[in-house]
């Protein structure tokens, strides 16, 4: 990937994070930590790789994305809004009682959301259903999903992993957002799913491990997945929870609790400084 494109995507990702944080500020609620760890992945998918058209959000031939870690709506909705699926100013109503933008992703209400999620562990199965349809209908669309690394403690993930490997769904690419933190601590402290790669390998997946904040590595992994035949691909993305704001990084406190007004101010300052440095 050219350096110029890397810079553009980095600038876009900062914009996504800022927009997501503005939504959380407006709502006084929302999950910032996991939203920021997955932000670079969504940026590459929605601005670089996925075949989508904001004018035709239900196009049957489009690529699909399932946010199985469905609480990371701030980044998901910021991405969709900035990509043109709905007005960015609507994010001011995030989690509001009269808003269509509720706390977890909703396919029936939000343009561009391909699957509702919220109860962890379920989204991968839905992505498999979409990929199976692509095979049955002989369509070329690709299906993407993002899972949390704590989420893969759910048993259904492994039922789904077995099925996708068994069906050899090479139109399916799954990211594990491996930020190493969940509500009660690090994922090793709570219930270690490591080694993640070996588990998916055992279920006949093509397995890649990348830096989940490196745009070129994300894009390259997506391309490698496309080239792989006869097996689904999982991309274990090493990420930092709260990535992009110094005091939120690797701080489990910011999984779901709302920053203070001072913390918001500081966070916006840091993001704006990053944006300014990328404009040069």
């Amino acid at each position, binding site marked *: 990937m050219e350096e110029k494109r890397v810079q553009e995507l980095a600038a876009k990702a900062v914009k996504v994070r800022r927009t997501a944080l503005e939504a959380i500020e407006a709502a006084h609620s929302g999950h910032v930590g996991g939203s920021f760890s997955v932000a670079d992945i969504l940026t590459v998918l929605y601005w670089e790789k996925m075949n989508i058209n904001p004018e035709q959000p239900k196009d049957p031939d489009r690529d699909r994305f399932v946010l199985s870690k469905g609480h990371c709506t701030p980044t998901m909705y910021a991405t969709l809004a900035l990509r043109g699926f709905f007005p960015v100013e609507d994010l001011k109503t995030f989690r509001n009682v009269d808003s269509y933008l509720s706390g977890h992703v909703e396919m029936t209400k939000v343009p561009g959301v391909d699957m509702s999620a919220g109860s962890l562990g379920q989204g991968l199965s839905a992505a498999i259903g979409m990929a199976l349809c692509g095979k*049955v209908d002989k369509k070329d669309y690709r299906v993407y999903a993002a899972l949390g690394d704590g989420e893969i403690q759910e048993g*259904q993930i492994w039922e789904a992993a077995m099925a996708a490997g068994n069906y050899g769904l090479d139109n399916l690419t799954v990211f594990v957002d491996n930020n190493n933190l969940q509500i009660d601590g690090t994922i090793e402290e709570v219930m270690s799913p490591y080694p993640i790669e070996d588990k998916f390998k055992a279920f006949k997946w093509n397995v890649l491990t990348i830096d989940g904040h490196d745009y070129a590595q994300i894009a390259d992994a997506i391309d490698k997945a496309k080239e792989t035949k006869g097996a689904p691909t999982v991309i274990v993305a090493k990420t930092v929870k709260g990535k992009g704001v110094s005091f939120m990084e690797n701080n489990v406190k910011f999984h779901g609790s709302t920053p203070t007004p001072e913390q918001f101010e500081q966070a916006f300052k840091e993001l704006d400084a990053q944006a300014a440095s990328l404009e040069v």
Partner: protein
Amino acid sequence: MGEVIATREAYGRALCEFGADENIMVFDADLTICTMSCYFAQKYPERFFNAGIAECNMAGMAAGAASCGKTAFIHTFAMFAAGRIYDQVRNSIAYPGLNVKVVGTHAGLSVGEDGATHQCIEDLSLMRTIPGMTVICPCDANETREVVKAMIDYDGPCYLRLGRSGVENITDSIPGYKFELGKGAQLKDGDDVTIIATGLMVQEALKAADLLAAEGIKARVIDLHTIKPIDKDIIIKAAKETGAIVTTEEHNVIGGLGAAVAEVVTESCPVPVVKHGVEDVFGHSGTAEALMVKYGLTPEKIVEKAKQAIALKK
């Protein structure tokens, strides 16, 4: 006497009969020869997927397929369809309003010898409390075939309750019988009491009505195959015209048909509603016939309940 055939068998045949529709995708969880999805699987293997013994993933895959415009059918025992995967049915299927038909076979005590772990007596209750879920429990083969047609025509989530054991086919020989989703079918008229039945208790309700007739009590019999959305009109009319209702179901008396009927009656036309079913206890191993007697799911018990209801009239 009509042909004796299990509703799951009639279902399997009907799904295969109407399965030519290219939009239909079918999933099972290693129970194809029990749920009878095997007929479809044999005829349309390219649209059939065996999820293995992994019901949660099956439900999710069907949701994903439905999100792509498919009419998806999933199959397992009622215990797992309504119990084990309740969260998946609620959150991945019903909440997004996806067109998935959740088919639970081997419901109720008539599973027989496998015993309590497999005898789901809670499914109607669990499924009907999910917003937007259609809940159907046909009584015989003819009605089951009609249900399959109606479910394919209906765009939205449904739960279908089916039984393991053979039941007499009755509805095709009842004059005036017509199936309509969401509408109860009056099988027999009467003005002393109404017996509202669902599933295999419909046949028992008709037998109970004959026993009551021998004692000079004229019982109306209603087959309420659609538990939700419930046919309020037929219930209110029965309450007004007969003044007493007995409900009968192969299900816990808590939360199922009886509760659904009582909810309508108490709000619209209060008359006595006596509930007949499984008295809030788990099942047991035994033949289906022996279990029906042990747990009182018999015409004679319905007669007793009918007399109780009549005695409660003002």
